[in-house]
């Protein structure tokens, strides 16, 4: 190729005015020939363009993403099953408890005494707790020294 022709062609190329065929010819030309210093950048560029086209998608194409989703549903189903069975067995054990003797007293007199005893015990515990609050009266004593009640 004449040097001048090459110059105008490169000029056209830079302005985006070359046809596909011309561009292909340039690729071929720059790939196979030694070129003058001034075109060295184009040689690299065209070599790059040709080489870049050789990259391939090497992975297997997978069209079925559905099985994955099936398993996801299986997971949901399994967890529901686990929760359900847990609730079910829990219910069973509760029922068992109901059937057992819980110490219900049939005689009213005895029941009355027993209840009284229990309430007494609760009251004792409460008053025991209240003893600790006696300390608070100390505050009142000090307060009364300064603030006389009318």
């Amino acid at each position: 190729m004449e040097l001048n022709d090459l110059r105008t062609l490169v000029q056209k190329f830079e302005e985006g005015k070359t046809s596909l065929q011309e561009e292909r010819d340039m690729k071929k030309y720059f790939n196979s020939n030694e070129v003058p210093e001034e075109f060295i950048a184009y040689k690299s560029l065209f070599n790059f363009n040709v080489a870049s086209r050789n990259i391939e998608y090497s992975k297997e194409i997978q069209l079925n993403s559905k099985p994955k989703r099936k398993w996801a549903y299986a997971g949901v189903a399994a967890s529901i099953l686990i929760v359900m069975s847990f609730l079910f067995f829990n219910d069973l054990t509760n029922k068992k408890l109901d059937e057992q003797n819980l110490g219900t007293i049939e005689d009213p007199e005895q029941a009355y005494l027993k209840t009284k005893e229990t309430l007494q015990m609760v009251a004792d515990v409460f008053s025991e707790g209240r003893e600790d609050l006696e300390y608070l009266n100390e505050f009142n004593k000090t307060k009364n020294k300064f603030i006389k009640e009318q």
Partner: protein
Amino acid sequence: MNHHTFLRLIDPVKDKMFRLALRLLISKEAAEDATQEVILKLWNRKDKVKDYANLEAFMISVTKNHCLDQLKARHNSNLRIIHTNYDNNELSTHRLAELSDEMAQIERIVGMLPEQQKIIFQLRDIEEYDYGEIAEITKLKEPAIRVTLSRARKKIKEELLKTHRYGIK
């Protein structure tokens, strides 16, 4: 459309889709994921796929949009922990090693171009699409495409000349 027909349609285009994804997303893993996702997207819409006159342009166009969306998502969600966030925008050393110095250098220069220029440069200078097809893929008018392409070509040449000169000095 069954499996085999679809794969036959995809086969001649899949490398081009991958190369475009690679051009935009830079990391090989992200590009592979993107290609796989786009193919799956097309497969799920396979009944509509028949209606497109230029199927290849349509496939490339879907790839382009998918990658641009990915880039936008990456940009918007710096806090999301997905592997794409860890791809820096440099080429991986692994890929650099596969390329010669000169190739790596041009790859880097192209990587600095604005996205639109990358896309059009990729489609025209590497994949050799004609302007009509590029217009269909990018939804741009032909003159706009020529201008963008011209800018990309000039920029690459300038940068190359710069580095060549540094080499001499």
